[in-house]
């Protein structure tokens, strides 16, 4: 046995978590050095689904490249598209109709809710409770139905085009969103009953994977991961874009920095998203949903950067234009990439079981990391 098990010179075991592993939700490969059950070191090995989206975008026009960004963080596909559209619009200096901006924000928040619900279900499943996954999907299905009706697809919506949205909202949209809100509000208590207040769950997450505020800044963490550490980094507040300028909402902050704090940030963010949707759903202004743009888009020479908040954190879209019809260079600063870099720091000294809870609360989406 000794000659079969790979060990470090100190006699610690090297365990390969992934590339196919139930709790990595994709093809993430982690080399973990363990002494017994205690993790001593973690080395992420990524790139199994690297599709070089940045290189592909260099040969696609400004209308075309947006669709491929849905495939990065597929759970917040709409926000990725939104970021690209905002950057292109910034370059073109197009005024987006107010109606389109409001629709974009409502769909963004619905996407965030869908993403967080999937995260909640899969976190519970990682920790061994299998039933919450189905309760989460019951509500998530309502959102994907709304998406299907209005955007035409359930996950990779590709609803945004530069200058607005692809089509006007479906006549049933408002009614269905309201139905969803009623359903979600009546079921959120169940989520807390089943998972949040459960003593086993609390023991599994409290005090695990602590990330201090200073480390969150240094590791460039964003989104609920950083907000769980008390770092205020909600791009919707700091650089308000689209309709976020005109609505009232709170930035959710927790200070403990452990897995439970990150969990609570996301749970409270869901309620805040519902609050945002409630403010907007009855006040969708009338008017155009798509601004007039030229058939072939050409960005002026220059560099454009947009920071916006996806379900996982800050997405940066950096476009370098040479004045042509295709971008000269595109960089997507993906939230999962930076959050993953903090994983080694957070997991050291914890048990193998904690790896699941920390990775679960980081909410890593692997295509988002690999791009």
């Amino acid at each position: 046995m000794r000659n079969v098990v790979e060990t470090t010179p100190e006699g610690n075991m090297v365990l390969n978590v992934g590339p196919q592993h139930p709790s990595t939700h994709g093809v993430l490969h982690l080399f973990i050095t363990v002494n017994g059950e205690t993790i001593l070191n973690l080395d992420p090995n990524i790139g199994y689904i690297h599709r070089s989206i940045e290189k592909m975008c260099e040969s696609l026009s400004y209308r075309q490249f947006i669709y491929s960004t849905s495939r990065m963080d597929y759970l917040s596909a709409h926000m990725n598209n939104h970021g690209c559209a905002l950057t292109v619009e910034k370059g073109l200096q197009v005024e987006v109709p107010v109606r389109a901006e409001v629709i974009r924000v409502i769909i963004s928040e619905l996407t965030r809710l869908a993403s967080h619900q999937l995260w909640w279900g899969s976190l519970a499943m990682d920790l061994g409770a299998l039933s919450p996954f189905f309760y989460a999907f019951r509500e998530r299905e309502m959102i994907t139905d709304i998406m299907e009706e209005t955007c035409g697809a359930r996950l990779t919506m590709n609803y945004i085009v530069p200058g607005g949205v692809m089509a006007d909202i479906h006549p049933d949209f408002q009614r269905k969103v309201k139905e969803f809100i009623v359903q979600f509000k009546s079921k959120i208590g169940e989520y807390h009953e089943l998972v949040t207040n459960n003593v086993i769950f609390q023991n599994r997450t409290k005090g695990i994977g602590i990330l201090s505020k200073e480390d969150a800044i240094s590791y460039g963490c964003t989104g609920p991961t950083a907000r769980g550490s008390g770092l205020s980094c909600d791009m919707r507040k700091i650089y308000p874009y689209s309709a976020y300028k005109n609505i009232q909402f709170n930035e959710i902050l927790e200070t403990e920095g452990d897995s439970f704090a990150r969990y609570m940030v996301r749970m409270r963010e869901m309620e805040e998203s519902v609050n945002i949707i409630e403010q907007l759903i009855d006040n969708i202004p009338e008017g155009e949903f798509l601004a007039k743009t030229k058939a072939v888009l050409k960005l002026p020479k220059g560099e454009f950067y947009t920071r916006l908040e996806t379900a996982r954190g800050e997405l940066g879209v950096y476009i370098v234009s040479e004045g042509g019809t295709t971008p000269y260079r595109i960089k997507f600063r993906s939230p999962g990439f930076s959050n993953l870099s903090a994983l080694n720091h957070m997991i050291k000294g914890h048990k193998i079981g904690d790896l699941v809870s920390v990775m679960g609360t980081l909410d890593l989406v692997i295509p988002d990391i690999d791009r």
Partner: protein
Amino acid sequence: MSFLSNYIKEVYGAVSSLLIGMKRTGYYLTHNKEVITEEYPEFRAKMADRFRGEVVMTHDAQNEHACTGCSACELACPNGTIKILNKFDITPEGKKKKAIDSFVYHLELCTMCNLCIVACPTDAIKMSQNFEHSVYDRRLLTKQLNFPGSKLREGVE
């Protein structure tokens, strides 16, 4: 003594939180009315009107379509899904007129991004709601969208 009362409180809190969770799942165990899954082959969900299943070309009763072969969709497509092969028809007046020979659609490359539909100036193509695309031979996924013998509708430029 405070140690003991804390210990008891801890145990009580833990047990009651577990019992609350069991009550919730117990409710679902005994109330199996609401079922969220669907039995697929018998029950086929009605897809929404806008659902993007695959690109189809609309033909009317006279087997006429509206595609002029302008290849706007071909240019708009990010993946090279669409290939348009043109031919030249001779009109009764003896003029040469451009028309499509075949509109080739590679379903295996398509990401259903809807950009071709938006780009089409004559609304010749649209998205169908069919979502069952699996076939046994990959070659069957390459489709010709214009029907055999179809021609351009009068008045469409």
